[in-house]
């Protein structure tokens, strides 16, 4: 494997951090050697097939498994009632956001009531996957169909109840109003107010690898190895133990190669529990591989909110207060962190702006649809969308350019660390610089001139320019803050760095990658700390037997929390090695310099000992200082004191055919600041992918349901994940504002692109149509929606749809 060093962005003055080192993960993935769950060969495994409710809401009257049990290859078939004894507890929700939150009992297979299309009602085990699927079709279930709560606004009215036994669809009301009177005052005194309603459509995460599970019971000792396509092997182990009643120490969870997650694999799923319980019951390995059409029902969905956002501003457009009311779609049940997703955005609806008064309320509502949960950005894209659309509305209202209204309101560079009215401490930022960089890269003035020219000429090809300035809170999370939000776990991360006798280095991380290139980045950090080559550093992860402690990968946390733990452990290895080097060279430890993996005596560089020699000496333990334990190994667990706050400005340029409503994204510029960059190649890749996902929400994707609660978008023919032909290349820039929150000065970049891009695109579409009087536009901005908006505006003499 080759490594290239071409550019440096942040990081140290020497070494590999900050360089575009090529990924060490690539060779196995490019040659087909990488093993995803579905690739594992497990002799004797039974295949699980899940029978799912075709009704959004129904009483399960009878489950007849007799015909299925007679099918070829079938070993067993079970109803929900048959399996009830397997569960020590219902399926877990780790985030009871309020003390009085309503939590419907949720078992892996429903007992008497199916609450969404896709809710499991029976399972079949057979010798082959095809036999299991064939037999599942023979399961006969009698239902009494019940009214379904499908539309979110309607569900919020409690007209139809999503759970038969409950009295309301309301899961919780969560409020953040540090100074409600100040908000009221600001609105009473405002020269200008803006009130906007936006809908965040549901999204299907659509990781390219569908989910998969394989549980292998060991023949002796009652142990189980759980292979799962998951982002969270550690959390999964704990939750499987609690829910299936298996002592946690007897569970080993392995996430092999994982083909993308985007939050959808940050969960504890029915199929994981079923494979474990059925492997225990049948004393055989049990496996399940999700089909794509099944994923539309069985895997959590993202977003799903109705947003009401109000701004109070003075006549110049300085925002004095932001007031937000959300209705958030929980779906039928609370999955692992379902209720907390809107709360992750609750602090950020004033965005990058210096807003003195702020209030936020969210009502979580049950519907008879697939549960929602984390999807890339999780709460923060929704917040950014609302404030960035509303800021454009404010700009139009007061007649200033969208860039100018942002500049007038930015939190100034010299105000950091900035105590926000929502109660956060923003670590560092220079929002003006990112905006200026993005406008320059996009040639904003040139674009505006071209737009004016096209309008003057009456061109049918309308040009729209959309801005989005964002900040996110990531690096989840300080454990004490999580405690204040009632989250059931902490937010630390663990790491071990050890030197082997041969001088090679092993790094063990509790983070669990699924495409982010952790092995490459972690090896770079440790290589620089120890002064060794990254090729000599191996990275172990995603296996609870190898990394017993960890809190896994989500919320752009792996580098700022996990990477910091790794750096701390590496420092401790160096500290110990220094003591040993001092002993061997007979000098004081502080008289030693570590350079390129060798300790040398300051002023007498010929007196030196290499780290590799020290590793071997620590291993033989023949001559250690008194009291020193053998081997060079150190552990560290890092619990951050604050979140990190990446930021930036994106510019989307769209061209709209006013006759057909077709929207083309013709140009996209992003200037992001994620603090110091460990590997700019990987940073750029994260931004590219994030942009595409956010653009997709704006333009194409929607998990659509009919009135009966059937999901209509069950394949990639209906659910429009964009292809290369629908996207342009992206123009990226960056600024570097190190985070003071962690010693690496890093912030995180996994979600930034998704957070920024959705409002940039929709703002561009509205910008293209604003002169016609179109001021509102729902997502996705389909040609039909655009055409209808243009048509309606043309029919209204005064213009305007808002």
């Amino acid at each position, binding site marked *: *494997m*080759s490594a*290239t060093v071409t550019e440096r962005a942040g990081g140290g003055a020497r070494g590999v951090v900050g360089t575009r080192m*090529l*990924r060490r*993960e*690539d*060779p*196995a*993935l*490019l*040659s*087909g*050697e*990488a*093993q*995803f769950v*579905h*690739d594992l*060969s497990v002799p004797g495994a039974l295949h699980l097939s899940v029978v799912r409710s075709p009704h959004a809401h129904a009483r399960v009257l009878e489950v007849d498994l007799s015909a299925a049990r007679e099918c070829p290859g079938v070993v067993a078939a079970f109803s929900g009632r048959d399996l009830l004894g397997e569960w020590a507890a219902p399926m877990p929700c780790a985030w009871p956001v309020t003390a009085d939150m309503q939590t419907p009992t949720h078992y892996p297979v429903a007992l008497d009531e199916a609450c969404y299309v896709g809710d499991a009602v029976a399972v079949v085990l057979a010798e082959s996957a*095809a036999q299991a699927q064939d037999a599942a079709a023979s399961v006969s279930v009698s239902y009494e169909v019940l009214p379904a709560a499908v539309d979110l606004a309607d569900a919020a009215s409690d007209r139809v109840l999503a759970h038969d036994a409950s009295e309301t669809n309301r899961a919780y009301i969560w409020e953040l109003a540090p100074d409600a009177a100040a908000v009221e005052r600001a609105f009473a005194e405002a020269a200008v107010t803006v009130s906007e309603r936006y809908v965040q459509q549901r999204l299907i995460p*659509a*990781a*390219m*690898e*569908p989910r998969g599970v394989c549980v292998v019971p060991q023949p002796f000792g009652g142990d189980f190895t759980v292979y799962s396509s998951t982002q969270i092997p550690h959390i999964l182990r704990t939750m499987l133990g609690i829910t299936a009643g298996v002592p946690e120490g007897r569970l080993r969870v392995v996430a092999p*190669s*994982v*083909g*993308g997650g*985007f939050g959808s694999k940050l969960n504890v799923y029915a199929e994981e529990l079923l494979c474990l319980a059925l492997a225990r019951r049948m004393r055989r390995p049990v496996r399940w591989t999700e*089909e*794509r*059409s099944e994923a539309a029902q069985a895997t959590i969905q993202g977003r799903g909110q109705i947003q009401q956002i109000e701004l109070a501003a003075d006549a110049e457009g300085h925002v004095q207060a932001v007031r937000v009311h959300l209705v958030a779609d929980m779906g039928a049940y609370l999955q692992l962190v379902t209720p907390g997703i809107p709360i992750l955005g609750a602090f950020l609806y004033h965005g990058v702006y210096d807003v003195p008064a702020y209030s936020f309320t969210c009502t979580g509502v049950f519907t008879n649809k697939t549960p929602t949960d984390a999807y890339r950005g999780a709460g923060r894209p929704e917040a950014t969308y609302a404030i960035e659309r509303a800021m454009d509305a404010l700009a139009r209202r007061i007649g200033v350019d969208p860039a100018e209204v942002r500049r007038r309101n930015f939190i100034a560079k010299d105000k950091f660390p900035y105590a926000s009215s929502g109660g956060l401490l923003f670590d560092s930022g220079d929002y003006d610089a990112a905006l200026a960089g993005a406008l320059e890269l996009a040639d904003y003035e040139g674009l505006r001139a071209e737009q004016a020219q096209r309008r003057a000429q009456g061109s049918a090809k309308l040009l729209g320019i959309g801005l989005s300035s964002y900040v996110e809170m990531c690096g989840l999370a300080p454990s004490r803050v999580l405690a204040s939000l009632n989250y059931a776990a902490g937010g630390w991360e663990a790491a071990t760095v050890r030197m082997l006798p041969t001088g090679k280095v092993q790094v063990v991380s509790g983070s669990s990658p*699924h*495409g*982010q*290139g952790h092995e490459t980045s972690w090896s770079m950090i440790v290589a620089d700390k120890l002064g060794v080559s990254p090729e000599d550093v191996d990275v172990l992860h995603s296996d609870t037997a190898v990394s017993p402690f960890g809190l896994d990968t989500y919320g752009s946390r792996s580098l700022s929390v996990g990477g910091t733990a790794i750096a701390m452990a590496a420092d401790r290895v160096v500290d110990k090695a220094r003591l040993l080097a001092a002993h061997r060279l007979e000098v004081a430890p502080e008289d030693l310099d570590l350079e390129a993996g060798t300790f040398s005596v300051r002023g007498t560089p010929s007196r030196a000992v290499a780290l590799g020699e020290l590793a071997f000496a620590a291993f033989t333990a023949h001559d250690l200082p008194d009291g020193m334990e053998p081997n060079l190994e150190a552990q560290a667990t890092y619990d951050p004191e604050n979140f990190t706050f990446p930021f930036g400005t994106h510019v989307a340029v769209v061209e709209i055919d006013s006759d057909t409503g077709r929207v083309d994204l013709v140009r996209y510029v992003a200037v992001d600041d994620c603090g110091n960059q460990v590997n700019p*190649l*990987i940073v*750029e*890749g994260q931004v*590219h*992918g*994030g*942009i*595409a*996902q956010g653009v997709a929400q704006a333009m194409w994707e929607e998990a659509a349901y009919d009135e009966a609660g059937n999901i209509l978008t069950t*394949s*990639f*023919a209906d659910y429009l*994940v964009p*292809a*290369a*032909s*629908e*996207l342009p*290349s*992206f123009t990226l820039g960056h600024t570097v504002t190190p985070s003071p929150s962690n010693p690496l000065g890093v912030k995180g970049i996994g979600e930034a*692109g998704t957070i920024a891009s959705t409002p940039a695109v929709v703002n561009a579409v509205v910008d293209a149509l604003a002169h016609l009087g179109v001021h509102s536009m729902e997502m996705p901005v389909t040609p039909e929606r655009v055409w209808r908006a243009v048509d309606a505006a043309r029919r209204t003499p005064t213009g305007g749809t808002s």
Partner: protein
Amino acid sequence: MKVTVTVNGRAETHDVETRTLLVYFLREACGLTGTNVGCDTTSCGACTVLLNGESVKSCTVLAAQADGQEVTTIEGLAKPDGTFHPVQQAFHEHHALQCGYCTPGMVMAITSLLKEHPNPTEAEVREGLEGNLCRCTGYHNIVKAALAAAGSTELVS
């Protein structure tokens, strides 16, 4: 039924159900799991392989249809000494993969595309890849890698 396919230069004869798709013949009968399955509607292209040198989605070809023919999978693309094919190498150098699940199909699709269009424009690469979905990269670096591989002198092999 008995099906014989020359896979990566080696004759593979297996007794399979008539309904067996080529992708499962490759994965389960031949043990070549590099070819991935990402959907069930021929939409995502993760399962793309070369059938007699041309890209096909192996989830939409019956193993029986490939009887007597030649298939190349991701495992057969590098030289016997492990040297990557120029498209594989370009993917590595341009960070054209993240999770890697769509990657085998992407690489095979681009290999086929570049055989048909040795010097494509960016637009031609994008159009040519519309049958292959990637959720990680936003395609930016995939397109870059394809264009870089097109410039490679080693491509026609």
